[in-house]
């Protein structure tokens, strides 16, 4: 797997964001994932590819704490997932078909909901939060439609709303679960362009489940870094050339 040199360099350069340590998962008798270890480092872009039923959704749900592994341990930002409390560091873009199109919620209400987390219980949403929301709306260029009902928007617009919601807290890790299902090709291309641009220019780590192999290979390289059964992991690290320099500078870029 990894050489010693690499490990040392990792330690100096970037912390682990997600660590899977000999993780297994089984539904009743059926083993979906067995003894899998993997590490996502700061500023990685990890593309997860696999056919339906390969277990990529299971894997993703375990990584964000929606499922518990039957064996092994998962750490987020170095903290065992059971004790992890800094959920505002994670932005999550769920599968598009997860929400009900008739739901009475405006774009603004949905984006604001990205700020609701365990630390905001019993707290009012104040001016600071409204300002963060304005920011996210502006960055995603959905300010004009902020009072529209979410179900009235096009697929591409909805996707930007969910991305804005995931970004409103300025997360360190962005998790995307098949974000472009059911969106036309041009909108998909724009969406990926935006995501990869963010990866190149912001201090953020990305984990994206996708079925679009050609797009992932085109952006992240032909060779998967690792695989777990039929699931392949493609990894690209931003500003690789600077990583040998053990200082804070590039982390602050």
């Amino acid at each position, binding site marked *: 797997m990894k050489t010693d040199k690499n490990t040392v360099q990792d330690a100096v350069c970037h912390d682990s964001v997600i660590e899977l340590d000999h993780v297994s998962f089984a539904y009743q008798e059926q083993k979906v994932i067995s003894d899998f270890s993997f590490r996502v480092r700061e500023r990685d872009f990890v593309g997860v590819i696999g056919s339906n039923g390969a277990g990529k959704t299971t894997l993703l749900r375990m990584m964000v704490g929606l499922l518990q592994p039957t064996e092994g341990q998962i750490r987020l930002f170095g903290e065992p997932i059971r004790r992890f409390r800094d959920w505002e560091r994670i932005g*999550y873009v*769920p599968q598009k078909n997860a929400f009900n199109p008739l739901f*009475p919620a*405006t774009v603004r*209400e949905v984006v604001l*909901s990205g700020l609701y*987390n*365990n630390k905001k219980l019993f707290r009012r949403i104040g001016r600071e939060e409204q300002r963060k929301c304005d920011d996210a709306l502006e960055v995603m260029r959905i300010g004009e439609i902020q*009072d529209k009902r979410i179900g009235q928007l096009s697929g591409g617009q909805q996707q930007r709303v969910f991305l804005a919601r995931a970004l409103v807290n300025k997360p360190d890790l962005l*998790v995307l679960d098949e974000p472009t299902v059911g969106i036309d090709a041009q909108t998909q291309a724009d969406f990926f362009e935006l995501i990869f641009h963010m990866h190149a220019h912001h201090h953020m780590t990305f984990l994206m489940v996708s079925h679009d192999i050609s797009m992932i290979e085109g952006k992240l390289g032909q060779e998967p870094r690792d695989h777990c059964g039929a699931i392949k992991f493609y990894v690209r690290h931003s500003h690789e050339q600077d990583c040998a320099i053990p200082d804070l500078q590039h982390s602050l870029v």
Partner: protein
Amino acid sequence: MEILSADFFQRALAGGLLIGLTAPLIGIFLVLRRLSMIGDTLAHVTIAGVALGFLVGVYPVGIGLAFALVASFAIEKLRKAYKGYAELSIAIIMSGGVALASLFFTLGMGYNTDVVSYLFGSIYTLDTTDVYVVLAVTLIVVIVVAAFFKEFFLLTFEEDAAAVSGIPVKVLNLLLTVMTALVISTAIKIVGALLVSALLTIPAACSLLIARSFKSSVVFSVIIAEIAVVAGLMIAGIWNLAPGATIVLLLICMLILTLLGKRGFSA
């Protein structure tokens, strides 16, 4: 007209106004989570509890409430066991409730008329204790919904996203279930077990058609329910109609008007 100033009518109005606030407040979350039928189920189970209460001579609404609570936990459990088949758990508990109710009915032949009043509602027989119980439930529901409004919104909009934000999803689901049981068991004396579902779902159904934001849909559904309760009680009082049925029929009229109005606007 003098009926409107009678004591029993005043109590009915007070109870009705309180239920007109809590039922749609909980109902909107239930409807959006595809649990519209939970109202019917819990109502039937509550009737079983009420019948048992009469049988053993304990405050019927109290026993009904206990039954509704147990049933709502059972529904949550079954909902998880049969993921994606939420309605299955509801069907099972509903038939269980009806079976128990009819069992208790036949055990105590003498009190049938009292139990029947819970089936169709008997808002005019509300006593002071009943009004205080409804008031307590209303306070609990309003405080809990206000305290966790934003979390309930996210939970209802997308349960997974709520969990990934570290929001205590299990606790909130449980709270919602308990509040549903509280509201239904106190509402059945007012509109009746067979009609309580209407007060939970129809205001939400109307507001889904007209509201753009979540906040406004909550406000609209409360306004709609209150209008139906007050107007329904007045009409029923003056023309001597069944109050529960009048309220529900008014709600349905309002839904039809909303549908027609909406069609008129979009045409």
